[in-house]
């Protein structure tokens, strides 16, 4: 009797674990296959351009809005936190560092994950359940080359540009609050910002962005590719794409930060 309980207990523990390990293995295989096909021809440049426009250009408003308010709120908070003597250069510095190192890459990536990761998973998932992926194969076109490689490249290439744009807008947000709300001298604020500006801050943000862009596209493609069973399956894939991309973004954000800044 007792043995049976233990067996049941172990199997409830073991089943999800085995499932998890299987899906981890599937994901790893998918990553290898996707990267391989992203590096060898045929390349579908037109598809890449379309995706790059979708991910990059059409995300500009979202990223702009996100980062401008992030910059504004950081200026406000750091002023109320550090207020007093030298607040001007302190606020400029805090805004600069937090926007370029963390806020612009992470917030932009999370927004793009919601916007693009979901759309990719839905599109590819629908193609999968309506046999369009099979149709591609029967037309001698590998879905990895035709669909996934352009998306992975587009994510990898465009996110850094989005984040550079977000950097500028975010710092501008801090400037607006600093100058119009907190009454700083505009010239001093800009000088302070330029003085503290370091290449490393920008570089880490850009490296993060590239990794995040790859993660977003990868999760969108993978979850779409794995989806099955009609509308419900596609819905699940969409949710999974966004959730898994968001979590991975936060995890990799920490890992990359540790690589660059841990002493």
């Amino acid at each position, binding site marked *: 009797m007792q043995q049976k309980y233990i067996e049941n207990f172990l199997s409830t523990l073991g089943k999800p674990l085995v499932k998890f390990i299987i899906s981890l293995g599937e994901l790893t295989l998918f990553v290898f296959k996707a990267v391989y096909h992203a590096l060898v021809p045929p390349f*579908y440049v037109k598809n890449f351009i379309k995706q790059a426009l979708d991910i990059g250009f059409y995300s500009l408003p979202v990223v702009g809005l996100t980062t401008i308010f992030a910059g504004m709120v950081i200026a406000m908070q750091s002023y109320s936190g550090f207020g007093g003597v030298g607040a001007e250069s302190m606020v400029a510095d805090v805004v600069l560092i937090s926007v370029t190192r963390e806020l612009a890459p992470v917030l932009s990536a999370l927004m793009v994950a919601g916007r693009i990761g979901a759309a990719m998973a839905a*599109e590819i998932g629908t*193609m999968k359940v*309506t*046999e*369009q992926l*099979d*149709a*591609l*194969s*029967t*037309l*001698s*076109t590998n879905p990895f080359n*035709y669909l996934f490689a352009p998306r992975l490249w587009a994510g990898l290439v465009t996110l850094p540009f989005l984040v550079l744009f977000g950097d500028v807008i975010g710092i501008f947000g801090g400037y607006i609050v600093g100058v119009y709300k907190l009454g700083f001298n505009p010239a001093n604020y800009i000088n302070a910002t330029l003085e503290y500006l370091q290449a490393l801050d920008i570089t880490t943000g850009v490296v993060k962005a590239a990794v995040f862009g790859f993660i977003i596209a990868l999760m969108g493609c993978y979850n779409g590719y794995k989806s099955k069973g009609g509308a419900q399956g596609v819905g699940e894939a969409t949710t999974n794409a966004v959730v898994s991309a968001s979590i991975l973004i936060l995890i990799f954000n920490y890992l990359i930060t540790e690589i660059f800044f841990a002493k």
Partner: protein
Amino acid sequence: MSDTKISIQNLHKSFGTKKVLDGIDLDIQKGESLVVIGGSGTGKSVLIKCIQGLLTPDEGSIKIDDVETVDAKESLKKDIYAKMGMLFQGGALFDSLCVWENVAFSLLENQKLSRWQAKMDAVRVLRQVGLAPDVADLSPSELSGGMQKRVGLARAIITKPEIIFFDEPTTGLDPIMADVINDLIVESAKGLGATTLTITHDMASARKIADRIAMLYQGKIIWQGTVKEMDKTDNPYVTQFVSGSAQGPIKVEV
């Protein structure tokens, strides 16, 4: 060279613990139209997908023009699969492309024809399947089910494949449209001299298309013969399926 186009031996495929194909032996002659009939969920689609290389069988051999395709090299596979065309059950048209881009997909992506040339070809084939040139610029979602099937057929035959697969070509169509599609299938296959493999459970369609009929049941081919032989056979499985009766040896799992 023998006259056998596709030769399948001892084909097995399981999903988890469920055996879907359990030792299929099937030969299809050059230029022949073989129709595989069988109930829903008997593995008809899996059979087609194995032949097309979309699924890898667990065991067995599939030879096309005497060349083994299971576990063949990628480059060889590409050549083999370039000989094939397929009409999918739901059409499986790419909804990101317009009708003519769908039809001309292979011409644009594989043969690198100019867009103008490809469109001319697409319009010509669309006309063959009874669609007016002004359909070419529509998006697939603007078409009716019957028109989508026609576009799918046009896409399947534009490369003049040696082998064409039809996955339940008449499902979801009204009887008259179904008959029109059947005629088109026969016409285009004969026109190309192609070998065709159709899976269906629509007996009217099977009678019209088939040179030979094979019945799939529980993962095995349990009967094959011509339409005439099918009407005379005393195989209880076949007679039950053909007459569409709930009584008989085939039990429907509910």
